[in-house]
């Protein structure tokens, strides 16, 4: 499929460009906020898997709109480097690495956060089960941090792939939050598996004190939490089918009249769809960082990948 032509017609992409967001993802967070009023009373945030940074932009703009917000803090983490955003502390690290979580905690210096979000997506391979598993691991790492840093009543939002085991995750999150909702912003395509888990009202488990020990993997960290996860035992007799599964309620967010991310719109510049131009000047849409296969493309262009006989 011609990706370029689809992108040109992607109104969210155009709108992001015009409003100065680094990625169209910004609208997903904005639409989630419209529905759940996520930013209310939020000052201290961890934005995981944040590159190129449009969520951080949204958060920075929201939290620092009143200038004297001295105790506010945004920490953004990604594998990829990000260009600087005002009032955002940026870390380049792997969020699944226990040391990374320690590093983030360090920036909060013992204080709690109001909101932890993760828009993380792995390198999708095309092996659905593996992709969904790694995605779930990113969420668990984010959740691990959340259990260490969220204040009671805090909020947690993470991107999910609604695949075959998503009901396991819903069930486990149910032990830790008052409300667990599966939300799909209209700016996220109906044709993708993507949705967001919105968890409201963090309730630490009674009698369980999370401790970030850099020797523990995420899996080991959750082992004694009793949120319905199977854990390793000596006989290796995990009965997977017995794990709890729950379906979280689904909420579509964003106005029905907002742009439809599945539709093809006319290219005509002065069509009647209202593209809001934001007066606030923000950083321009960021050019993507060089892909890892840049050299491979270069060699191909030079015709050096052929077999010479």
């Amino acid at each position, binding site marked *: 499929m011609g990706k370029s032509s689809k992108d040109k017609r992607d109104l969210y992409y155009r709108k992001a460009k015009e409003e100065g967001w680094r990625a169209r993802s910004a609208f997903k967070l904005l639409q989630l906020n419209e529905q759940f009023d996520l930013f209310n009373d939020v000052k201290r945030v961890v934005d995981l898997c944040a590159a190129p940074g449009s969520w951080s932009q949204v958060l920075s703009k929201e939290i620092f709109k009143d200038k004297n917000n001295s105790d506010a803090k945004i920490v953004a983490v990604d594998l990829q480097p990000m260009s600087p955003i005002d009032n955002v502390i940026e870390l380049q690290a*792997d969020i699944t690495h226990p040391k990374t979580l320690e590093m983030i905690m360090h920036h909060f210096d013992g204080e709690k956060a109001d909101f932890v979000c993760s828009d993380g997506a792995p390198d999708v391979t095309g*092996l659905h089960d593996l992709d969904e598993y790694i995605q779930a691991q990113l969420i668990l790492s984010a959740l691990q941090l959340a259990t260490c840093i969220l204040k009671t009543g805090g909020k947690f939002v993470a991107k999910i792939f609604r695949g075959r085991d998503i009901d396991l995750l819903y069930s486990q999150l149910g032990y830790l939050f008052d409300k667990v909702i599966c939300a799909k912003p209209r700016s996220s395509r109906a044709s993708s598996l993507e949705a967001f888990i919105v968890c409201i009202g963090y309730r630490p488990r009674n009698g369980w004190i999370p401790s970030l020990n850099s020797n523990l993997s995420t899996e080991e960290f959750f082992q004694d939490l009793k949120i319905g996860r199977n854990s*390793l035992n000596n006989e290796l007799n995990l009965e997977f089918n017995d794990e709890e599964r729950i379906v979280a309620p689904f909420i579509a967010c964003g106005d029905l009249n907002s742009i439809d991310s599945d539709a093809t719109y006319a290219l005509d510049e002065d069509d009647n769809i209202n593209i809001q131009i934001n007066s606030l000047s923000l950083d321009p849409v960021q050019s993507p960082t060089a892909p890892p296969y840049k050299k491979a493309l270069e060699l191909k262009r030079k015709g050096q990948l052929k077999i010479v006989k």
Partner: protein
Amino acid sequence: MDNMKLDQIKHIGPICALKVISNNLLLSGEGPTLSLYDYIKGEKIFERLVFKRNKIHGIEIINSSNDIEDDIKIVIWGGRSLSIFTLNNFKDLNYEIPHYGVSDWIFHCLFENESTLHVLNSHNIVHTVSLLNDNCKLINTKHCGWKSILYSGTISINKETGKITVLAGTVMNGILIWDFETCQVKHNLTEHEGSIFKVVASPDNKYIISCSDDRSIKVWDMETGELLANGWGHGSRIWGLNVYNISNDGFNIFSCSEDCTARVWRFNFHDNYNNGELIQERIILVHTGRHVWSLDLNDEKKLGFTAGADGKIFVSDLNESQRDGYWGHKWELNDISNEINCVFQKGELIKNYSDFGYGLIAVTSEGKIMILKDYKKWKLLFIDDKFAKFCILKIFENEPIVIIAGKMGDCILMKFNENCEIEIKHEFNLNDSFNRLGNILINGYDDNYFALFESPNPNDPLIYKKIDPINLSILESYELLKPKDKITISSLEYNKVSNMLFVGCRFATMLVYKIENENEKNQPLVVYKNLFKGDTVSSIKSLYDNSNNTMLYITNKDGTYHIMKINENSTYEYLQSSKIQKGFLEGHIKTPNGDILLYGFKSDCFFVWNETKQYEVYREICGGPHRRWNFKYWFDSNNRLRYRFVYTRSSEVQIVQQGEPYAFELLSDGLHGREIRDICVINSQNNNDEKIIITGAEDTTLKISTLKNDGTFNSHWTYREHIGGLQSIHAINDEYILSSSAKEELYLWKITECDNKKCMSLESSLPPSEENPDLRVMDFDSIEVYDKINGKKIGFLIVTVYSNSMIKVIYYDIASKKFKVLIDDNYMQCCIFHVRFVCIDKRLFVLIASTNGHLSIYDINNVIGKYFSIDDSNIKEVKLSLNDNKFEEINESTKLDKLIINQQIHQSSVKALDILQETNGCIKVITGGDDNSIIVSKITKDEGLKFDIESFLPSAASSTITTVTVIDEKTVLVGAVDQSIKLWNIENGLTLVDNKYTTVADTGCSEIASFKNGEKYLLIGGAGFSIWKITN
């Protein structure tokens, strides 16, 4: 109450694990099923479901101490599951396969010995398990202090020292190599970019081989961690690596990739240790779609095994040049000159050669006629000036009879014996007919042999001569007149059924002659022009089946091929037409088992492609099409294709003759290599015991297959007409289907049968509404239209919906193959996912469902009533007839009438929809949404129409519902992306009847095939394809 039930009977899908266990046995992980193949005989020996849900992602074995094959111990893993059993246990159905698990995704398992297994998980932790007394017990867990998520990992054991090393591929450029005993990290190799997708050790444990998102393969020294070499070549991510052929000189690497290829690489110690290059030796293109997921090797026999998203398992010969009967050689002109003991003049070249089965005959530009006896030794036959500069050389396919001709029309016919000696020779010339010769085409059937001579003068006729195969005399001679237009002949075939001679030409032209009157001038019976969009008809071959039709296989230089049927009145139709992905076609071969092979050139290669099974049989890097070449093939006693290819490259003559193959090429046929987007089922016109299945996939191909009432499924042909991503395929009736895709493509196909295969051919396509079509035709529906007077089918009424909210109602006229747009309008600005015609109380409506979660209905009777009448009382099957054949009068399109219903039912996109027309005239609409819910709505006749929601189930699945299919009056099937497939009773609310898990990920479409004998099958498509039996 219902007790309808679903049972899976067949699954085709991604294969993620292969393991060679002996010199004839291979294990393959096909979803949760483990299969055992004999790759010498080419058959599946056994298969068994070993996991409940998880796909098999890996297999390792350990040979037993007693060396008995049945005692080989096997570990399989996938997700968090693993299982351990012997080959004997596996084959014993009374043995219950044990099921174990760890709490994290498994990347690799390794038997240290028969009673100790190590398991590496995705957080870089190794569990050690004791297998004593057939029990599984966790005895130890180790790690190196770095527990972030991995994308790959291998545990490797040094067979000499017993030392175990863990190789772990992280998501941030790095590979961690740690010693298992001490848990010390030995190396952190950081020269890759992006996630590491595979890291393995060479069998001697001296080297590390890895690949990452950067698409390179790297070779490292295990001891020092030094990067030794880089291999570039794969066009996409690399998924599998394996090392073989280790010697003192170096080793080979076998790789497989997302780019759909497997490749062979060479690493040489001497040459490359310092300049660090991994040389790419061979590209293997035997899978389709995307992703070759798994590979394994038989190092002893030098065989490479690959499997991919297409469900195919292929065995590649990695040592072709060592097989019995292989012959490969090249001669420089000097070599030949020395051999024949005759000096070549300056600039003298070999102009032409042909293979007559015992040897090669060749002609130089100075008229030297030579023989390559037994394909080994050159001999001079004679020298004749008449054949200098310009010479035509042709050989009959099944007889060692050669014709050689010069510019002035001098010809020699020669017959060779096994010793490559001339047995008989007959000379003649064409001076009676014309004084210059341009080309000769030859052909034969049964015991008849003939040649067609063409003069460069457009006014000269073609001369047809029949040749006696015994004494080479000319038996008959005819003059065939050429049409006025410029004609250049390119291919020739005689058809026995019609007694007609077919001459293929350039400019997509074909001449047809009936050869009856000797001495008279024969006019062409017909001249077919513009047969297709391309240029030259490169080959024509008669197709004889039991139908008594005149049918031809034709291939065209442009890469298309057709089965052409010539009707009594000389009109023609294509029963089958398709094209290859890339390249030029020179000819086709039908194998004894009915497969169709196509051969030709692409970029710098000559190729033979199995079009039926979709894989490359042979590829030779020869420099491209503009050269002299000769391809000779035959079938051996096992009905296997054998071939010899001779070509000229940089004035060298090169020969390659394939040797005796060791193994069977194709172990599993597979299906689509990308996600299946829609399935269409129609009745076979003359066989109640089979259905025709058309599937369409993300890679834009369509495939036609059959499903028999015993559940057997076979694929026949593949179509590459669509360019845009496929959206929908539906039948109009048992003869026509429509398919739609992105780039605004709506194609009408006619289904037929010939050569024991179901076929289809593009009949017409709806012209797009813009110059650079960019819209997706999301869905469509159709109704047959009859002639009011004689009741014959004359057309179809079609409604199409688009990604920009456009709706069109179109009439298609069968006779003229033309579309006329009756209604052209827009719903809103959202994307419409579904459309149906619905008929309530003899009135016709259009029902749509969109991304905004609404069901909407338009009354179209005002427009439709102008041209058509609804004249059947049978509610279930609407019949339209065209009033007084007004087709010609339809000139402009109008707008839709007002929406009469526009009701939001789902929160967001309506992703699945099916309709149940009830006998009392009302209809039920069953929808599934992105919001996980199922809704049953009812539409009844009222003043206008009345819309009610009958039942609503909010969390009917844990993710998007993507397919709904009505099975009978009370049951529907609902499939979702969470891989659940559920049967619901919809009589009174929604009651769950059956709930199954499907291995097909990205579950996206379903269809029912109901046979006359009562058998019912459910077909599920997505990332794979499965067939379920529905029983009561």
